[in-house]
């Protein structure tokens, strides 16, 4: 391993206090409090349009809150220099755009942006970070392939490699598994769990699959009505009442035979065995 890589566990603490965020007249988040502990994996769950993306975008200061603040180690992120923040906190948005014809290596290299000065040449540290990101995501074999030609699962790994090359201690990912088949979903989540375990990266992600969220996270945050409905370990958050209130869905919670955690079994109007 080269000395350029920061292998120490994250010590950065991210916190939101009384966040109120909206688009124009429309309020999406109101009075939201959240604390992300260093070195943990947190999943944000909630119904469609409940403001999960809005929350991530505010945490990474893409949006300015109308009220409240986002604090990184006690400093408001909205007053930090943008590149300094980008060296600590990385974001993989829901729908990133890959430029036409770009190769995997070039795309991953763009993750180095916050570490570069305007006229400073590409450095050995940049090379090492890109090589490491490609290795970690098992995309090194794809390095000179055009991104447009990859499958959905490969492409998602490449995007994750890009934010890895940014070498931030905190990683925010918006629906990193959406559009992937189930084996690729597991692959991506395993990769994130590796990162968290081996490098101590703090991970905050939006997931739709409650059961995978429960299995892969230290903490779940359930959003409802612009606030945190419940936050904590999956076993505490995922109750039948919570699923009812947050998703408007009846369900049974049983033990996950694989992980031992909670497993949500939805109850619809059909195919329900009597008794």
């Amino acid at each position: 391993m080269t000395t350029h890589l920061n292998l120490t566990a994250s010590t950065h603490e991210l916190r939101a206090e009384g966040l109120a965020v909206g688009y124009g007249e429309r309020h999406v988040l109101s009075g939201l409090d959240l604390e992300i502990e260093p070195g943990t994996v947190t999943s944000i769950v909630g119904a469609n349009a409940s403001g999960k993306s809005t929350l991530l975008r505010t945490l990474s200061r893409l949006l300015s809150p109308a009220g409240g603040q986002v604090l990184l180690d006690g400093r408001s992120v909205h007053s930090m220099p943008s590149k300094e923040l980008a060296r600590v906190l990385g974001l993989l948005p829901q729908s990133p755009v890959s430029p036409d014809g770009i190769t995997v290596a070039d795309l991953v290299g763009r993750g180095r942006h916050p570490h570069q000065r305007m006229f400073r040449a590409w450095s050995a540290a940049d090379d090492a970070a890109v090589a490491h990101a490609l290795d970690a995501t098992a995309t090194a074999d794809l390095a000179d392939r055009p991104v447009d030609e990859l499958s959905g699962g490969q492409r998602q790994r490449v995007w994750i490699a890009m934010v890895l090359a940014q070498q931030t201690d905190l990683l925010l990912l918006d629906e990193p598994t959406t559009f992937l088949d189930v084996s690729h979903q597991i692959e991506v989540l395993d990769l994130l769990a590796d990162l968290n375990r081996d490098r101590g990266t703090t991970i905050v992600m939006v997931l739709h699959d409650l059961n995978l969220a429960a299995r892969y996270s230290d903490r779940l945050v359930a959003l409802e009505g612009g606030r945190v409905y419940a936050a904590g370990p999956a076993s505490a958050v995922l109750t039948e009442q919570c699923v009812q209130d947050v998703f408007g869905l009846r369900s049974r919670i049983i033990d996950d035979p694989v992980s031992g955690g909670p497993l949500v079994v939805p109850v619809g109007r059909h195919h329900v065995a009597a008794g």
Partner: protein
Amino acid sequence: MTLTATSTATRPSRRRPGTDAPRSPALPTRTAWRRRLAWLGAGLVVLVLLCAASVAIGSRTVDMPAIVEALGSLGEPVEGLDQAAVVKRIPRTVLALVVGAALGVAGAVMQGVTRNPLADPGILGINMGASLAVVVGMAWFGMFAAHHMIWMAILGAALTAVLVYAIASAGRSGASPLKLALAGAALTAVATSFITAVAMPRGDISANIRSWQIGGVGGAAWDAIGLVAPFLAVGMLLALASARSLNSLALGDDLAAGLGERVMLARGLAALSSVLLAGAATAVAGPIGFVGLVVPHACRLLAGPDHRWLLSYSAVAGAGLLLASDVLGRIIARPSEIDVGILTALIGAPFFIHIVRQRKVREL
């Protein structure tokens, strides 16, 4: 997005980070870098040859010794028609170089800022906005002096850019490429009919306007070049300084911001650079179409999507295209000349259709 079914076949084995996984092979970026540099060098060589051709070839045939003699006695009082012809070709060559480079870079920057592969100072209405301002200046305020035209052109270009962006941004999805192109087309139509309306009743100036509007570098003079040079220089520096920001913006606004880019500022500065370049180029040479559209597309095939390369390539190729068109215009209609704006359209249009047919034009 279409997902292909190749993933299982090519899925590499899982490797854990931080373990002694095989290091990735030497990154392919090094060889790509050399290849891109070689192409840029080749482009510069072609450009030098084109410059030589532009000085040597004209509607008046001057033989080699006379050309050499004329070049040797630059700065001295001009003697004879041969020498006069050659001396006149030098500012013309320089003008074609700088205008071509400016239009090529302006187009590349606009395509980057709007993430619109069809963006170009022509399509977004910038050139026509600049033209309208110049024509209004001529017709209503008698502004025929070169420095007046430059300011009017840049003013018109800037106003049009702001207007196009404002119109396209209305509504929820923001300034999408399609809405930008539509807003540009609408403003172009308005500006074109306005120009006609303004110029039509003015028989006294319409010839003046018409010759300027077709676009050309034939009337090049050192003082006009000197006047636009500062604008072009500032625009060019700003564009090159924006190259890395454009690389980030190409990944989408959210990701760009996540990478530490100040999105609105970066986009504003890049847009300003292309307005300066397109406006100043239009002021001296009239609205010249297709250079800003075709050149970045052709360059992208060789330079790839990195704007640091793309902008340099576009400068060289834009200069080359305009110079070649100008030289061609002097040859094919001897003893008369064809304006460069007509030729770039003749060369550019089929080339552009070819590009659109060859490559999927995304995001439109």
